């Protein structure tokens, strides 16, 4: 292996490896709603249907249903609809509690978080939302794992 190739490889590898965390965490551009996502989700009526199906699935899911036994499904649907509507760039305002305090008293492992993602994927499948659009929404939600998962 020649030296220039080694250097190029090192530069690429290290550039990927040691991106400063400050740049990583503070990247506001990645947190803003991607163009067209709100429309792709079917706007407010579509998101309302999606959250209806999502919550109905969640409370029945053997892995995570127990976490929601003290929650009123109708209130949860309404709150989540506002949250997803706002996140995806819609004209809504989420006025519920922040993710950290909502989940602070619960035993939530990464497996539970992943199960929730899977349930959301199947709810989006049922609404006919294309996979690429699903991932654009999931990319906005996944970082919440830092506040939602309480047991590391």
């Amino acid at each position, binding site marked *: 292996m020649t030296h220039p*190739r080694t250097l190029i490889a090192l530069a690429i*590898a290290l550039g990927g490896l040691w991106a400063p965390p400050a740049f*990583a965490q503070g*990247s506001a551009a990645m947190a803003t709603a991607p163009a067209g996502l709100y429309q792709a989700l079917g706007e407010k009526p579509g998101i309302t249907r999606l959250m209806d199906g999502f919550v109905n699935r969640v409370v029945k899911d053997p892995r995570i249903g127990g976490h929601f036994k003290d929650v009123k499904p109708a209130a949860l649907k309404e709150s989540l609809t506002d949250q997803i509507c706002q996140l995806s760039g819609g004209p809504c305002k989420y006025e519920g509690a922040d993710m950290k305090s909502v989940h602070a008293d619960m035993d939530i492992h*990464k*497996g539970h978080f*992943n199960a929730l993602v899977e349930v959301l994927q199947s709810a989006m499948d049922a609404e006919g939302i294309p*996979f690429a659009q699903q991932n654009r929404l999931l990319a906005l939600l996944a970082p919440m794992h830092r506040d939602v998962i309480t047991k590391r």
Partner: protein
Amino acid sequence: MLFATPLLLEQETAMKHRPSLTLLAAAVLATVSGWAQADTGKLLLTGGVSTIAGSAGGGLTPWAVIGSNATEGEVGVSAYATRAATQDYSLNGYGVALGLHERLELSLARQDFDASPALALNGIAPFGVAPGQHLKMDVLGVKLRVAGDAVLDSDSWMPQIAVGLEHKRVHPGSIGSVLDFLGTQTSGTDVYVSATKLLLAQSVLVNGTLRYTNANQNGLLGFGSAAPGKNRRSLQPEFSVAYLINKHLAVGAEYRFKPNNLQALGAAAGLGAALREDDWKDLFIAWAPSKNLSLTLAYVDLGRIVPGITNNRRQTGYYLSAQVAF
């Protein structure tokens, strides 16, 4: 038992060549089927597939992901069987991997390489290579995730980073005399660092691995070389990129740089480029019909493998791998 039929098909294909593969796969299935109830919770395909060396990743290169379906607080296991064939060679492989808390991965793999063309080496010197000789190699792998979350940290550029090692031991049979002549060792250890990032909003996964190695053809031709060949290890980069078409389907490509330790020794012996080694490339499609099964089909270009005995042909062909994971 949704996964039973394709797996059995793969077993039947491999059975002709290695009866023990079927036994091993059956034993592993029997062992892990009891674990399936453990309900491990990794997202589909985010544990990667099994590499030819047993660790989780793409087909040819390890990724920073930890194998099996187990996430934090869980223990999981995976097993795989692989067959690859090119113009002049073929490789059967199988192995198991244990994933602990999405933190530590231990893997064990066995490769069986049909090196029949090596018979021609007897024309160069009286090596005593037997007809239809196979090279076998065992690989013990350890991988530790040291930082990041490849999937969930989708608001940052920070990848998941892991460090790993692959300790390999080759059993050359009657080709041992050739490896002695080349001055290669029959065991060696690669160390590597991998960075994997799922660009979730784009449905694209990228991986970069930097490997420190002196393995010839991944170790099948031993490690290092007598002078003037290159005996010392060198840094070799490996890259993978994959596009997720849907939850169950990914397509991608890999490029793995390789050292070319033996060519100078061959040239000094008057054999020209007979011992040249090239980079490895592949195009793959991976299908995970369920969380417990994935099938990977790839077109591989392994470049020249001892071109002096294979009419200088590039070795291209297929790669097929089945993995069960719990």
